[in-house]
């Protein structure tokens, strides 16, 4: 039922997603970071839709729709609004050692593929090889959160991690049961709103969104 064309198309989209994850890792402007995040969501939705079409799993259309609404429209809109209100729209972060970060990222991709290979071989879906890509983009988002010292980019890394997890769910298993997917979407939504509230609390408490001020609570 699944022609190799769709498999290739999904692989292409997944590769794009990974590429965007790398771009986010090196992106210093907050505004561009949000746009990259929106693009990543769009690619994710497209790959889910292709998956739905090729495998006739109709509930995946709803997942794709949910992704567009939440990750392409609502979250980027919320983040744009927040950075405008917080006056950090043109913030540029000084990232040290981009080459080292990129090389670490490459290492993570190799590691992710190694980890995922035995599992991918068991998968029966059209897009089984994308599981490695999904795991790689989760790890890259994780790396991004570690390297960032400002609140907004860290949160974008957090949300991008969820994109990778979603790709893993659709590529390995044709998506989780609908009730679980809705629950996860609700958590992401509420989480994003709470993080928005948090930005204001952080700025009120520290006069800045720079997390380097957060060093009081350490084991002395």
């Amino acid at each position, binding site marked *: 039922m699944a022609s190799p064309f769709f498999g290739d198309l999904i692989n292409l989209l997944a590769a794009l997603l990974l590429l965007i994850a790398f771009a986010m890792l090196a992106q210093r402007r907050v505004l561009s970071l949000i746009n990259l995040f929106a693009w990543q969501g769009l690619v994710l939705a497209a790959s889910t839709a292709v998956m739905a079409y090729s495998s006739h799993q109709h509930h995946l259309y709803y997942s794709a729709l949910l992704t567009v609404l939440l990750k392409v429209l609502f979250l980027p809109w919320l983040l744009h609004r927040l950075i405008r209100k917080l006056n950090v729209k043109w913030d540029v972060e000084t990232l040290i050692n981009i080459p080292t970060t990129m090389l670490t990222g490459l290492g993570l991709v190799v590691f992710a593929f190694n980890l995922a290979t035995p599992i991918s071989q068991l*998968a*029966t879906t059209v897009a089984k090889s994308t599981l490695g890509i999904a795991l790689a983009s989760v790890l890259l988002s994780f790396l991004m959160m570690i390297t960032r010292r400002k609140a907004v980019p860290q949160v974008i890394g957090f949300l991008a*991690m969820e994109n990778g997890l979603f790709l*893993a*769910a659709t590529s390995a298993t044709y998506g989780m*049961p609908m009730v679980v997917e809705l629950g996860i979407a609700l958590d992401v939504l*509420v989480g994003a709103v709470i993080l928005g509230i948090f930005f204001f609390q952080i700025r009120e408490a*520290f006069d800045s969104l720079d997390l380097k001020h957060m060093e009081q*609570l350490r084991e002395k």
Partner: protein
Amino acid sequence: MEILWILGIPLFGALLLAFLGHRRWAPEINAALSLATLAATAWLTVRIIAHGQMVMVDEMFFVDSFNIFLIALTAFVGFTTALFSRPYMRIETQHGKLTPGRLRLYYSMYQLFIFTMLLALSTNNLGILWVAMEAATLATVLQVSLYRTPSSVEAAWKYFILCGVGIAQALFGTILVYFAAEKVLGAGGTALLWTHLNQVKAHLEPTVLSLAFVFLLVGYGTKVGLVPLHSWLPDAHAEGPTPISAVLSGLLLNVALYAVVRSKILVDGALGTHFAGNLLMGFGILSVTVASFFLLRQKDIKRLFAYSSIEHMGLATFAFGMGGSLATFAALLHMTVHSLTKSAIFFTVGHAVQKTGSQWIDGISGLIKQSPAIGWGLILGSLAILGMPPFGVFASEFLILTSAMHRQPWATPFLVVSFGVAFAAIFGKVQPMVFGESNHPPLPHPPSLLPVFVHLALVLMLGLYIPPYLAAWYHQATQLIR
């Protein structure tokens, strides 16, 4: 149908208190709602004891002897904490630490937090378990930053990011479980249902399940506070309001450990080896040892007892990892007595801190002279948590230690040294706070210490005598897990 009451009451309470939380009688509503939840739980417990395990509402909920005891414990501590938070939050409001908006947030999120924990415990769906665990983080994160001081905002941010990242790993683990289950059970709703998974666990793909368990353990283990994933825990406990420290320590850690143990049952069934048990033992013993040494250098009383929670959760994790009837029985007992004792300690600590106006151990002294109830509560609670006979913690620690001597002798020296260090650290710090001179003014409201002594009496009873139906209940749960 009881389950709908159990979940419906706190959810309704969260909505109600979101509007009325700033009223003068909001604390009473909060306590009444918690009492209603407890009553519904008692009703369900009676039915489970009479009829055995049950699957409810179109297979959405599943209650057996393992989770019913945690559900009952959660509802009980949820109620006593609501009682304690009545005078506590009144005093905080009088000190000008809270605005009406924040009070509404506090009460509403308190009920929501209880709801998410009860949902996590009673759901039959591993996906919903994940959703509820994440929701529990979301419900408490704004509580931790309730006072809006720089350090509380920092603690809440750390809590959010670390637990969020951790729990994302658990989601990947859940996806892998679903992936393995789908091959056996077919795609669709049933492949994540615990009742179905448990029946086919021997046919699940072992490689996938072992990888899944690693992710699940890292994810839920972050919330249990296992070393080295623990760094959010002392901060969140120290900076949030004390009722929240009590429920985080007494309940949330248990719920997270419950999720780990459920995963272990599946993996053990699929692998037939001791892989999951070994991982749990490793993390457990590391947590016990590291946490007990960190106890020595604490200067903040709430951080002190937060590290003690890491130590005790590590001990329970170790016991579950060892497996077998005796160790599993001890682990379940330890979860119960730790939850009761630690929440009692946080109640007294909360009042002691309000009385002296200081969270620093050096700033607190002479509690027993000024307020004998607070002083006795703290010293008895500390002795109980340190595993002194005749309290229940002694019974569970003794059982864990003896089964470790028989089955995992290498662990014994680590455990004995850790217990010794923990005793020296906690007793050495609590003793000067309780005795000695004091010149603090009395509290405007009488402290609510009834919950403390009820908890300690229960812990004492569990140390001396476990009622037969309770013992039977633990034994049934032990059969399910080991």
